């Protein structure tokens, strides 16, 4: 994002957030003009809110990259993210965004920042390992980490979350919240258990190969620390099945991956 673009965007956001008005319901609106303005403002409000969410997630990543994250700042940003997510879930925009094709790009961006965050540490070691295995690896490396804690945290990481664009596509808002919450939780866990950081590639272009199943699989293969059993365990921790076709495709991919693991 060019700097000018960024400035323009935040100026828009400033205008948007001037009086911090939440988007009001249409029912029971005392002011007709306000209602009309509200209607017109809806699409841009959502976009601006989305933009704020993106910005916040990037900031949380920055926390990972700094030498020692400022806990107060991280907590405040995380609370802001939760607040946005809750509002988006409440007014149903979460689902709306999922079904829109235009929303797809912003979701990808969200996802990419998530993966970027977790895998940038691995990048320093020349690996492109997907998030969950990073997580396990970090905990195994971290000598201060108690093994029981490692296991329990590892099992909380759910495999589909690492399937790129499917991360945010869980149709059930509760699940969205759950996965989302887990992202935040993960961030706090890593904040607590800091590991060596690398500041290079912080803002490198999103490598689209992240979205390649092949890349992910390659990464998994090269991760010798994670045994096949672990991999299977991670995959077998289920997400609730829904009837949505997107989710079905997730499961199909899961099966595919499991097959490959087992065969190797």
């Amino acid at each position: 994002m060019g700097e000018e673009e960024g400035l323009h965007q935040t100026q828009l956001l400033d205008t948007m957030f001037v009086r911090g008005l939440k988007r009001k319901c249409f029912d029971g609106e005392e002011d007709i003009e306000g209602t009309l303005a509200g209607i017109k403002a809806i699409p841009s409000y959502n976009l601006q809110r989305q933009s704020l969410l993106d910005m916040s997630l990037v900031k949380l990543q920055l926390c990972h990259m700094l030498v020692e994250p400022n806990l107060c700042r991280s907590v405040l940003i995380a609370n802001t993210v939760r607040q946005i997510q809750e509002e988006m879930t409440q007014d149903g925009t979460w689902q709306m965004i999922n079904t829109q094709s235009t929303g797809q790009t912003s979701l990808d961006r969200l996802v990419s920042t998530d993966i970027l965050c977790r895998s940038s540490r691995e990048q320093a070691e020349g690996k492109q390992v997907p998030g969950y295995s990073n997580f396990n690896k970090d905990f195994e490396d971290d000598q201060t980490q108690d093994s029981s804690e490692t296991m329990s945290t590892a099992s909380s990481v759910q495999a589909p979350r690492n399937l790129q664009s499917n991360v945010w596509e869980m149709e059930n808002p509760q699940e969205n919240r759950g996965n989302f919450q887990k992202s935040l939780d993960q961030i706090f866990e890593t904040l607590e258990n800091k590991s060596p950081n690398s500041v290079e590639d912080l803002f490198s272009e999103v490598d689209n190969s992240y979205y390649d199943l092949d890349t992910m699989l390659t990464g998994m293969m090269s991760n010798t620390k994670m045994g096949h059993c672990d991999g299977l365990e991670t995959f077998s921790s289920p997400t609730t099945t829904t009837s949505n076709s997107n989710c079905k495709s997730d499961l199909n991919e899961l099966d595919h991956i499991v097959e490959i693991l087992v065969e190797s």
Partner: protein
Amino acid sequence: CAGYPGGRGSGSETGGRSEADIISTVEFNHTGELLATGDKGGRVVIFQREQESKHQPHRRGEYNVYSTFQSHEPEFDYLKSLEIEEKINKIRWLPQHNAAYFLLSTNDKTVKLWKVSERDKRPEGYNLKDEDGRLRDPSMITTLRVPVLRPMDLMVEATPRRVFANAHTYHINSISVNSDYETYMSADDLRINLWNFEITNQSFNIVDIKPANMEELTEVITAAEFHPHHCNTFVYSSSKGTIRLCDMRASALCDRHAKFFEEPEDPSNRSFFSEIISSISDVKFSHSGRYIMTRDYLTVKVWDLNMENRPIETYQVHDYLRSKLCSLYENDCIFDKFECVWNGSDSVIMTGSYNNFFRMFDRNTKRDVTLEASRENSKPRAILKPRKVCVGGKRRKDEISVDSLDFSKKILHTAWHPSENIIAVAATNNLYIFQDKVN
């Protein structure tokens, strides 16, 4: 006039734009004779006020460098693979009991007690060693003499007397000396510890807000201070804009507050940034002990200890920033931690802002003034001119518009002399000292 005419800019010149010279804390001692500053490079510089002299009345009480020492060094935490910054977060003076001065200085992890003492005499004429310190052969000594003290050039030496380490997992944001002068507390993001000055290998944990599950963390401690007179009472502020007053007599672990100060949220001002701007960056008891003052991003509030449900006074520091919150969030300025101070009589409060501006509010007359700490705009001994930020519409000649404010020039740290109208203002790596103009 609520302004303080009397400008005497005294720059603490530390060559160039080195980041290590950024001043991170400023504090007068209890008499106002000494002024200590700590910087990002772990150094402490102490200024001493000149004795007033009849011969040079216009040089009334200038502050000159008295002592400079390296308080903290950068460290490396091997377990977590993290650097520990040497930046001095806070300095607090102890009251003076003898000729030496004592102060506490802290970085993110370690508190140190420093003794600053003068030496202006030197013993000479020892029997067993000569002037260079070499031992004399006892068989060569034929006479005895009594060593005498001879004057020497004044030497000020600082020695670390205690090191209070390994008690904080998180970053220390506050230290506060208790009125019993035997104990002090250190507060980090999640815990507050009580120390005895004599004991360095032990501290008592008196507040712990760390959740069992870090995933549930939503609030941190931002500042803490002991009551100026009641040694059992202290307050701490949080990132959610609340203040808790605790009584150490109630229990060993003060997790349950005796009083809880929180202002109800104004629904018309609610936004995604409401929580962030409500986070309290500083809390200070008044000298009287009757009030506490808190600083959040846009306001300073004065609370009466006897009223918990809202502050008694609210002062807008730079409300024109309210429409810029998103930009300030993006460039991280919204997380800047401004401090606030009382004057000696608790009638005026002061806090910093951007563009090297700082603000003073007179609680009695309700007048306020904005002043600027910069060399371009104030010559030494010139009277400071009040500044004004133009919020929109027509800009008058000497006003400055909000969009022209320099957000990299922030005044986070200020100090007020305990009894006189002398203030110290830290503007990045420069220190300004202003005082009331005489005659």
